Every structure is written in C-alpha cells, then in structure tokens.
C-alpha cells in the first residue's frame, strides 16, 4: 500500500493542526519534512514516542512541531504512522501536508485511514459497516463537490491543457502506430513549445493555489500591538464595517475561537478574538512571547501602532516580529496629533495604512492594503482556481510529468520515452477531471488523423 497523508484536524482553526502520515514509508516521509531538535531521526524512534522540532517545506521552515511516532501494528491504521502537530492555522497545516505530499506521500482518499485500519484488523465488523457507509457518502459528497467546481473555469482550464497534451500525444502515437501514413513528426521545437506553454499554465494554477485558498478558505489573521494602540478598536472597526460580514464560531474550550470577516474579496479569520476582547477591561499585558506565538501561526498580521505616540521598544519588538511575514502596519489614531516616526514604519513595512478607528476613517485603504499584501487584489474569482489539496496534488504531478518530458526532449531521448512522461501528465489531469486517459488518446488519434489501411 502506498503511504498516505492528510490533515486530521478539522477545517476550523484550532489550537493545533495535525497531519497524519500512514504507510510503510511513513517514517521516511516524515523524516524528510521534520527535523527534531535532538537530531534523532523519527525512523530510529520507538512507537509511542514523541519528538520536538521543526517542520520544513522545500527547506523552508514552516513551523515548530511535535511528531508522534506509532509503529505498526500499534497505530490507528495498523501501519507505521507519524502524526505531526503544528500550531494550528489552516495555512500552516496545509503547508505541512503539502510538504508530506511532495516528499513521497499521496493524498489520502476519503475514509482511507479508516479503511486501512479495518483492512489491518484494527476495527471490528460493525464499525466496518458504518465505515463503508461513510466512505460512500463521503465520496458522493466529494463527487458532487468536484462536479460543481469542474463545471466551471477550472474544468475548462484543465481540459484545455489536457486536450492540448492529448493532441500532442495522439500525434506522436499516430506517428508511431501508423509509420506508413503521411503523419509528420512533431519537431522538438514544437513539442517543447507546447509542453512549456502547458507547463506554464499549470504552474500558474499551482501558484494561484495559495491565493485561491485565501479567498476560499480564508486567511488566518492576527492583530498585534502593544497595549492601548487600539487593537480592539480595529477589531470592532473590521467587524462593524458595513461591508464586512461577521460570523462567530463557537469553540469548545473558549466562548469564541474565531471570527470570520469577509472583507471585499478576502476572508479574514480573526483567530483568538476572545483574547482581544478579554484584554479590553483587564490590564493589557501581552507579553512578547505570547505575541510571538500568535504571529507564528498567522498568514496575515495586522500590526497596530499609535499615531499620537513615539515608537517604543515594544513597538520595535513588534516590527521585528513582522519581518518576512505578510503584514500590514496599521497606524491608528490619526484624529490625534502626530508624534510617530512614520518613516521608520514605512522602512520596515511595505504596506502601511493610516486609520482612525474612532472616526471610522481609513477602512477602504486598509482593505486595499490587505488585498495587496495577500495578492488577492489581482485574484480573479472567475478564473480557474484549484479548490483543494487533491486537485493541487494532481496538478503538481501533471506539472512534474511535463517537466520530465521537457528534460527528456532536451536530453535527446527518443519519443517513446517522452510519450510516457506526457501520458503521466495527461493521466493526472484526467484523474482530476475524472476521464480515462489512454482511451481518450486513442479516440483523439482517429478524430485527428486519416490513418489506416
């Protein structure tokens, strides 16, 4: 069985997010994306042990994390399992999953962990029956969801790429299967051009994925700042803004764990807002450590500064925390006299906005800056967008197939080898849209070419 991975925590932002990896290569895959502080490889660890360390995606640090090792058969699925927990936040968790998927794991099908648990004898008969129902229900749901998306722009986009590749594949196949018919070989130049332009299209889809996710799933957002700069006022301004739609999610451990604000085309998930409200009346004393922890899991930071005061050492800490992150400097209290050194802020932040929460001024500017920093300003909702990790992973594999074909052409490999790489790209696109690959190439041959005896 292949090694599978999926996010095991729910879609709502919680305290932690868990990616579960299961299968014979689970430990190897996990070792590629997780490095423990002690330097011990997960591969060398016993079952039921944990390691603290950092998770990486393409050598970039994602987050601090804890990895739990389960050895077959003593795990949920009965296989080797690693569960990597990070600091919640959908984007961080998704990045972690993506790291696992590009390190040798494949995306788990609906219900697959449970299925494996059953197949490996970890579950009894009655449970198995309900699993079957869940699996089929889930897949119906997934299918319906996929159909919805596939109806639109994404389907068109993927089909265009896939059809264009199929045309090439069919031409190469006809050239091979009908050597006596007058079928021209594709020149290396034409083939490369076609491969590269389709590769580019896929690459665009892949790179738009994060932005798309920001629009579709929302952006994990935190508001930070030293006491009294007006964080809760900003919060109120965001939630009270006529254009924003605010929903509250009930949490189990706290009254409110998250508020969702739809700001223009962007969904902000304002995590830990309970904390914000709470600090309103009590002594505001957010320690640097706590702030640091919060920014670690956020995809967007709104750093609030006071227009009417000079920058303090605490402000300096805040500025440092925002380095290299998606952050907007929000300078509040423009209704008062300026004391702040705005240039110092502008030197540290690409996106700076002046507001007066009290007078409700500057909201439109804030919205614009947020969209700019997230890239959602250029996001075209009608354009094709990958909706989920499954589609993302199919696209990525298709893209890799194309890259491989390009390399094969450039290395001077013969067409038979190149065609196999193109087939793999087509197959992955067809998995995405639900068609059968080889059959469609064969059909393409007969519609395109006058061949045969």
């Amino acid at each position, binding site marked *: 069985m292949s090694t599978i991975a999926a996010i095991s925590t729910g879609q709502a932002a919680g305290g932690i997010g868990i990616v579960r990896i299961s299968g014979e290569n689970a430990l190897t895959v996990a070792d590629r994306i997780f490095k423990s502080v002690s330097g011990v490889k997960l591969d060398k660890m016993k079952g039921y042990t944990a390691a603290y360390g950092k998770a990486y995606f393409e050598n970039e640090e994602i987050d601090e994390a804890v990895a739990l090792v389960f050895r077959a058969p003593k795990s949920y699925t009965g296989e080797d399992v690693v569960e990597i927990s990070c600091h919640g936040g959908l984007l961080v968790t998704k990045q972690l999953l993506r790291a696992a998927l590009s390190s040798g794991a494949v995306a788990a099908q609906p219900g697959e962990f449970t299925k494996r648990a059953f197949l490996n004898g970890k579950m009894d008969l009655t449970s198995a029956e309900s699993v079957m*129902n869940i699996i*089929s229900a*889930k897949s119906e749901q997934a299918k319906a969801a996929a159909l919805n998306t596939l109806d639109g722009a994404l389907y068109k986009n993927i089909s265009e790429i896939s059809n264009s590749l199929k045309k090439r594949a069919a031409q190469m*196949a006809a050239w*091979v299967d*009908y050597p006596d018919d007058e079928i021209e070989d594709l020149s290396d130049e034409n083939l490369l051009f076609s491969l590269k332009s389709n590769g580019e299209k896929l690459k665009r889809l892949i790179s738009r994925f994060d932005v798309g996710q920001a629009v579709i799933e929302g952006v994990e957002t935190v508001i930070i700042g030293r006491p009294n700069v007006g964080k809760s006022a900003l919060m109120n301004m965001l939630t009270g803004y006529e254009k924003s739609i605010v929903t509250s999610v009930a949490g189990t451990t706290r009254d409110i764990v998250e508020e969702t604000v739809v700001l223009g085309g962007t969904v902000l998930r304002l995590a830990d807002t309970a904390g914000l409200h709470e600090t309103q009346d009590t002594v505001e004393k957010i320690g640097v450590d706590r702030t640091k922890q919060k920014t670690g899991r956020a995809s967007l930071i709104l750093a609030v500064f006071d227009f009417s005061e000079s920058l303090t050492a605490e402000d300096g800490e805040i500025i440092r925390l925002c380095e290299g992150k998606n952050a907007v400097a929000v300078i509040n209290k423009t209704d008062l006299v300026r004391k702040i050194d705005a240039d110092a802020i502008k030197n540290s932040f690409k996106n700076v906005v002046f507001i007066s929460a009290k007078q409700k001024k500057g909201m439109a500017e804030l919205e614009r800056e947020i969209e700019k920093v997230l890239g959602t300003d250029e996001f075209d909702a009608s354009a094709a967008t990958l909706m989920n990790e499954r589609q993302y992973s199919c696209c990525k594999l298709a893209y890799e197939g194309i890259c491989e074909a390009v390399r094969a052409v450039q290395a001077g490999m013969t067409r038979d080898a190149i065609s196999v790489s193109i087939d793999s790209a087509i197959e992955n696109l067809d998995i995405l849209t639900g068609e059968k690959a080889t059959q469609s190439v064969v059909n393409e041959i*007969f519609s395109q070419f006058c061949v045969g*005896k």
Partner: protein
Amino acid sequence: MEYFAKEYDVAVIGAGHAGIEAALASARLGVKTVVFAINLDSIGNMPCNPSIGGTSKGHLVREVDALGGEMGKAADKTQIQTRMLNRGKGPAVHSLRAQIDRREYSKYMKHALELQENLDVKQAEIVDIRKTGEGKWQLRTMLEAVYTAKCVVLATGTFLGGKIYIGEVSFESGPDGMFPAAKLSESLKKLNIPLRRFKTGTPSRVNRRSVDFSVLEKQEGDETDTAFSFETKRPPENKSFCYIAYTNDETKKVILENLDRSPMYSGKIEGIGPRYCPSFEDKIVRFPEKQRHQFFIEPCGLDTEELYLQGMSSSLPEEIQLKFLKTIKGLEKVEVMRTAYAIEYDCVDPLALKPSLEFLDLEGLFGAGQFNGSSGYEEAAAQGLIAGINAALKVKGEEPFILDRASSYIGTLIDDLVTKGCMDPYRMMTSRSEYRLLLRQDNADIRLTPYGYRLGLISEERYGAFLNKLKQIEEEKRRVTQTTVHISGELQNLLVSHGTSPLEKGVKLAELLKRPQLSYADLAPFDSERPDLPPEVFEQVEIELKYEGYIRRQQAQINEMRRLEVKKLPDDIDYNSIEGLRLEAREKLTKIRPHSVGQASRISGVSPSDISVLLIYLNKTGK
C-alpha cells in the same frame, strides 16, 4: 441421419489465425483436439492484407512466439519482404512487419496442423452447438456428424453470419468467396450469447501486368537481423517490392458523385466498422480537406501476379471501383482480379468473457479472434493461443493462464476486451499500453518464455538457449558497469561529433552507453575487451541502460498495479448485496464480473471508493 462421430477434449471451430493457435496450443498441451474449417484450403488464409506484423502487431507476434505459438515461425518461413518499422523512434516502438506469400503461409499452417500430434483436422461446417446432460459440449456438422468435447473454442472470424456488400449487391458469404457459417449463430443465440454485427472491408486485387510501375515510388525492404521467431536463426530476406501510389482530385470526385451507391452511406449495413481501417470512401468523407491519399501496392506472393491495394478498401459498386482506380496515376489501365467488398459478421460482446477467454456463463466455451470483437491476424493469433491454452488447462483441471497488462500486449489486448469491451473492431496499438517502455518486441522472450516453458509449450532446448542469453546479458551488464573508459583525443572527438559533452575524467563504459547520442557500435574502438556476443545481447544491455530511469519508474507503477491484481474476486459475489457500492458500479460489476480487484478498478464507472468498499468486503468475508 445424425450419427455420433467422435469424442474430443477440445474442439476448435475455425482454422484462421485464432483457430490455428488455439488448436496447436491445446494439442501440444497433450489433450485430444479437433479443429474444424468450412474449407481446409482456407486454413491460415489472409483474406485481407498479405502481411504480418506492423506496429504493436509485430509485438504480438513476437509474444505469441515467446509463448510457443506458431505464427512467427510461419511468417519467417514465408516472408518475401521485411521491414523494421519505427527505427529511430525508440526501441519501445520498433515493430517488425513482413509481406507474406499468402498461399505459402496457408500451406505452411495447414501442414503444421496436419503434422501435430493429438490434433485432427476436419473440413466441416458446424451448424449446432449445445450442452449435453453430462456437461459436455455437443457439436453437429452440416453432414449430421455429432462430436463431443469438454471445451470448445469459437474462432469463427468473418464466417459467422457473414454477408458481403458491394454497392447495391449483397449476399451471404464468408471471406474470399468461402461459404459462410450461416446456421451456427442461431444456436449461439439459444445459448444467450450476446451477438452483435461488426463489419470490415478489403480492397481489390489487381494484376501486376496492368500496373505502370514507372510512375510509382518503389518501397524496398530493410536489412534487418531480426525475425519474428526467437528460434529463427536466419535473418529475413527481401525478395519482393511494394509500391506507393496516390489518389487525386479526380478520384475524390468519382467517390463523392457515387456516395449514395455505397451500402455504408445508404444505411444498408448495420454493422459497425473499424475506425482504424476506414474504407476509402470513409476517408474522403471524414477528411474532405485532404487533397490526396497515399496507398500501398503490395505483392500477394512470389508465384502470383495478384497485387493488394492497401488503403483502398471499398464497398462501392464494382463499376465505380474500377472507375476511381483508373483515375490514379499508374493504374490507368488497371485490370481488377478481385473486387473490393465490405463484409458484415456476427461477433460477441467480449464483456461476456473472462480474462481466460472462457464465457462467464458457459463453462467450457471459449471465444477467440474476430469473434471476440477484435480485428487483425495478430490479435486473433494472440487470443487463439490463450483460449487454446486455457481450454486445455480446463480439461486437465488446472488453473487458467492469465497474462496481466504489465506482462504483455497480449494481456493488454485481452484485458481491454473483457474489461472495457469494444464499440468497433479492436485493433492493437502501442498507445494502448501504459507500460509500453517495458513491453518491447526485443524482450518478448524475457517477459514470456518462462511462462511458455512452464506451460509446456517451450522445449528444453529452447529454454536452455534462453537461459544462456539471460546469463550473457547479466554478465555483459556487469562488465560495462565495471569497465573504465579513459579520456583520449579520439574519444573526446567522438563525443563532440555526436553532440554530447566531452569527459572531464575517465568514466565507466555504462555511463557512456546511457547517453542517448551514443550506441554500442560507436564505442567499439574504446572497448578493447568487448566479448563476442550475439547482437540481441548487446541490444538488451544498451536498452536497459539507456532507459534505466524510465524502466524503473514503470516497474514501480507495475508493482503498485499488481497489488490489486492479486486480490481475486470470487465468481459468485453478489454485488447487489454489498453495501456502499454505487448503483453504476453494482451494475457494471455484475455484468463484467471481474476476476480481480485490479480488473474491477479499470472498469469505467467503478470509482476508487467502490474499490475501497470491495476491499473491505473481501477482508470482511475472509475471501
């Protein structure tokens, strides 16, 4: 009056390319076999093109041979021109094709059947087939002889319910003016066999003396060392030529003016024709923008003046056929000897078959060749071989022999037929195999000969030679990975002149062989220790090195695929009682009754979640 004639283990109906292999394989496996043909002069007849092999079909012939079949040997003995197609397009798609002396081929095959121990050859039309009380099959001939057999292979080709169409004229007929098998279909229908009508066609044959070759392009054979059979030691000889001709605007005009007289376009033919082998009028209609169509003029044998016009099949009236042929440069004075025709015939929906080619619901009854919805001599031979083997195994009470997709084109062909079915006559193509980098014509023996040996179709002597070849390949591979090539001026010149980068330090010979730009022959001057080995050994080593990365990846895909292939689905599963299967999956699974979870996963309409449900079900029921 009906009389009881004889009892057999296996009876084969039809002695075309499928029937021949089925009968020979069955008899060679030691069971008492009989083969019936409507006319014994039609054994191994080539009613269409006088050639064997071609892309992917050449692969099939090599595979049939690697398993101990006869087609490759017969083709090698009777070939008159041979070409290795697709040279330069990569080893996976190299395909051997030979023009065949068709009378000689037929004679060879008839004699092979006659000489075969355990095999009787009989001229008879089977008019009825039914099951006896003891579970045997009973066959009745036109002359009222009754034979019994434990297993029967239906290899009826275009004879079954055959009907020929030429313009407004149509009549019941087998191929090439033979009698059709007119009555058998009725009895097959009584067995609830889902018959349907397919059609195919063939072009006219013309007299060589009436063709002006001075204006045509000559096509010569290649110099190739490779024969179809791994046992043929003499390279093929070129004794004849083909010619290339072109149609023109005038030809097109004649066709378009007379389209209403084509039985295809007037709706007389209900049978579905092959997409890959369209009639000439089809080509004109479907590709109107094409100014001219190329076609080939091929010899039918060394001692005949008949020529075959490959690419010009037609069902237009005879006078129109003559008219359009005469518009073609070189054929102005053409004398037609045999008129082109379309032929419609009965065949089965192959979804009614198991991968062993036995009917799902009719124990001991097998189908092969055109009867199963395929087309082509090679596709027929491949299925005939498998059906014959499985009929004999059944008689012996042994497990069926099933080749999976990853093993061969034969396995791919049969899996496609019995899993996906076919909407038009099925032709093999390299693009149908997802594992084509591994399924090459050059390694058919490595892939399949061990199976042939285990079955008992490969002699000890041949197997010994095969094992020796494997050993030589291993040793040579080891040698080139250990031999260092040092830098020299000549070597650097060679590398640069072949468009590949010069060396910075000495490397292993294998590293140089991996470069697509370099061949074994190129490197000979730098490889003084090279042993004297047969060319096919060097060929294997070179291909395995050059395509190493791709081969490894395909092997990984295969390993993944085979995990599901070994999970067998019992014959008696009631898919309607399995909870969680979607309706469409239930229907398809009930109809096709796949033998493994792997096969189930390839059925269109069965989703990955259905497969999960099946796996759970299997575990739950302990199957």
